[in-house]
């Protein structure tokens, strides 16, 4: 076996997206297109109160006046927003009280996704909320959590059952007019997860949401709202997959995190949306707005492993509003074939003695483009703000690109900002060294990539770290130059 670049590239092309199956579940899908009527219909379908309908309509009006942003370092054919269906739900029972009631086809889907709900139950480590297409289909461990006063449910349910919380916080971190996709999401979001941790409560288990786009021609617009009340702690996981289709699917989510005084939120994502085929056809457009706000002494950590999507546009950010608050961003972004990722973070220092850390690891293979874009902003009143950023890029082959766009705006002289960046390439010498020790090329790449990403992988909760490691291996099988 020779390891010339050409042969390796061929090898790489043959790897397939293993979550690319489509489940034949009857679903209730809206006609394509977007109008005020559709927005009202979504809201009615979800039996929402009037204030929510109005909130959506206002978002829709804002969105109509906005233009799709073009500043990101990605090229793609803009979606035709009238060609997308904005609501699709598995048809059978809209709500399940126990797993026994869930459509067996659906359960089978979850098994293939590697999330056996039964097993999860037995392991008793993770509570899962699953969002298929537009509707949350199963939330586990509700009772256990309720005993501690923790609310973990779909956002639709939260709008009905806990309107005071939703009303108070939705749109406060990511306003409707924030950006084009956030406005769109605010108008049409169909489901998502909601989580509230009461004062002083430490959530006893990882909370997890699993997103899946199933139907063709549908967009997925989920909305997640996590509120950690004073002195509470929660670790939240999010996973995503989609079937292989040769058309592009749109995913425009909004995640808002609110960490009140002394609270801590750890938010981890393993994103594995369909990346498109080896020729760059199909794949998910992933345009996501994620932002958290930290009050006094609060802390938010974003950890993400991004291996999927044809185009990714995502900047999980922290607004460090309170004094002594801490924001962290740990990211691994892998691009292969024709994937494009423009991802990074924004750390907005408003309070005194605020600290932020950014560790970004970009891995590019094939003909992909991988950009880090980050903003560190220190407000004039933010005395003694500190930031450390480290952006490392690893390249495989010589047709891919790695880009770093760090923006630093410091308006207070006491700010300390450090930025480090490195770029390296997996060398044939490294591969040969591993080969000589009996490690084949694929395993060698996995080893090297895992080593490169270690600082970030270590930040993931155990259950997720293993999955993420495997995902890195699959995403990069055979790619070296």
């Amino acid at each position, binding site marked *: *076996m*020779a*390891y*010339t670049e050409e042969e390796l590239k061929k090898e790489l092309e043959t790897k397939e997206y293993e979550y690319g199956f489509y489940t034949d579940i009857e679903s209730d899908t809206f006609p394509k297109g977007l109008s005020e009527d559709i927005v009202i219909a979504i809201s009615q379908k979800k039996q929402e109160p009037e204030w929510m309908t109005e909130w959506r309509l206002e978002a829709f009006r804002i969105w109509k006046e906005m233009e799709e942003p073009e500043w990101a370092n990605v090229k793609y054919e803009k979606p035709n927003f009238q060609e997308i269906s904005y609501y699709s739900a598995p048809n059978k029972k809209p709500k399940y009280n126990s797993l026994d009631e869930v459509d067996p086809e659906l359960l089978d889907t979850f098994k293939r996704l590697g999330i056996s709900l039964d097993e999860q139950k037995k392991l008793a480590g993770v509570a899962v909320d699953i969002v298929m297409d537009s509707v949350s289909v199963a939330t586990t461990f509700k009772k256990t959590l309720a005993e501690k006063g923790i609310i973990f449910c779909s956002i639709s349910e939260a709008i009905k059952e806990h309107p005071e919380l939703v009303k108070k916080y939705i749109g406060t971190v990511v306003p409707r007019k924030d950006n084009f996709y956030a406005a769109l999401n605010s108008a049409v979001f169909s489901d998502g997860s909601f989580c509230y941790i009461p004062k002083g409560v430490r959530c006893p288990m990882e909370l997890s949401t699993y997103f899946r786009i199933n139907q063709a021609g549908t967009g997925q617009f989920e909305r997640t709202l996590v509120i950690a009340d004073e002195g509470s702690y929660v670790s939240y996981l999010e996973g995503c997959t989609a079937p292989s289709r040769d058309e592009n699917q749109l995913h425009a989510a909004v995640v808002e995190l609110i960490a009140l005084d002394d609270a801590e939120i750890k938010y981890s994502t393993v994103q594995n949306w369909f990346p498109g085929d080896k020729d760059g056809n199909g794949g998910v457009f992933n345009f996501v707005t994620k932002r958290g706000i930290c009050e006094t002494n609060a802390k938010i950590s974003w950890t993400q492993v991004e291996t999927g999507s044809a185009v990714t546009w995502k900047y999980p950010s922290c607004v460090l509003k309170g004094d002594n608050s801490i924001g962290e961003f740990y990211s691994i972004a892998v691009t292969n074939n024709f994937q494009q990722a423009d991802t990074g973070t924004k750390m907005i220092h408003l309070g005194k003695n605020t600290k932020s850390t950014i560790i970004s690891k970009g891995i590019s293979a094939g003909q992909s483009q991988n950009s880090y874009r980050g903003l560190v902003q220190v407000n004039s009143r933010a005395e003694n703000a500190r930031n450390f950023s480290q952006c490392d890029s690893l390249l495989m082959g010589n047709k891919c690109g790695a880009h770093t766009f760090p923006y630093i705006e410091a308006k207070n002289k006491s700010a300390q900002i450090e930025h480090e960046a490195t770029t390296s390439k997996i*060398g*044939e*010498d*490294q591969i*040969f*060294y*591993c*080969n*000589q*020790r*009996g*490690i*084949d*090329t694929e*395993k060698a790449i996995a*080893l*090297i990539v*895992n*080593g*490169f*990403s*270690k*600082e970030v992988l270590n930040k993931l909760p155990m259950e997720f770290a293993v999955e993420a490691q495997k995902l890195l291996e699959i995403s990069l099988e055979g790619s070296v130059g």
Partner: protein
Amino acid sequence: MLEIKNLHASVEDKEILKGINLQVNPGEVHAIMGPNGSGKSTLASVIAGKEEFEVKKGSIALEGEDLEELAPEERAHKGIFLSFQYPVEIPGVSVTNFMRTAINESRKARGLEDMPANQMLKLIREKSEMLEIDRKFLSRSLNEGFSGGEKKRNEIFQMAMMEPKLAILDETDSGLDIDALRIVANGVNKLRGKENAIIVITHYQRLLEYIVPDFVHVLHDGKIVKSGTKELALELEDKGYDWIKQETVV
């Protein structure tokens, strides 16, 4: 154990090895000496199966099996070990993790289960003590920030862990001070056995004072021009490589 017949090898159409013949039997230590550019490191790389070298003619066989069609990792599974002249860095991968992966991959190739963790730990303890390696060193990233001596000692540690049939030490003495040289050589001597063989590639006679070879070969311009016993190394030390060069011309 190793039989090389009329081996010709090129890189980018430039012929480097021009007809090497070498027979290494179990239990033997062979030294290959020669001036810079004579093809010593190329020979080591070709035996290990590095792709950038093309074998044009001749054959290499290990225990009677022709190696030509085998990938580098398959050769490693068969028991060939190369101690690199310039070991590469792999950031974020600890020495222990690297060795665990290497050993288990080789076991997998032989149809064996992964080595149980306690056995692995015992092996690591044993071999690190033998080579006077501080175990803290083993949790550091492979070769990253290692001194020249640490890199070489780490190579020999890996050799001890992998227990190869045929070990090729490519300029293992370069970059070593005298203390490190002694430790490394002692380690190698402890690994000598009736069942395995070692090829020591070196520029200087110095290492051969510690690792005493059964045979010494002098490589010049891609050919073995002189073979003898350990006395040949001393003679070379005395007269320099020019003596060999002149002799070949004559």
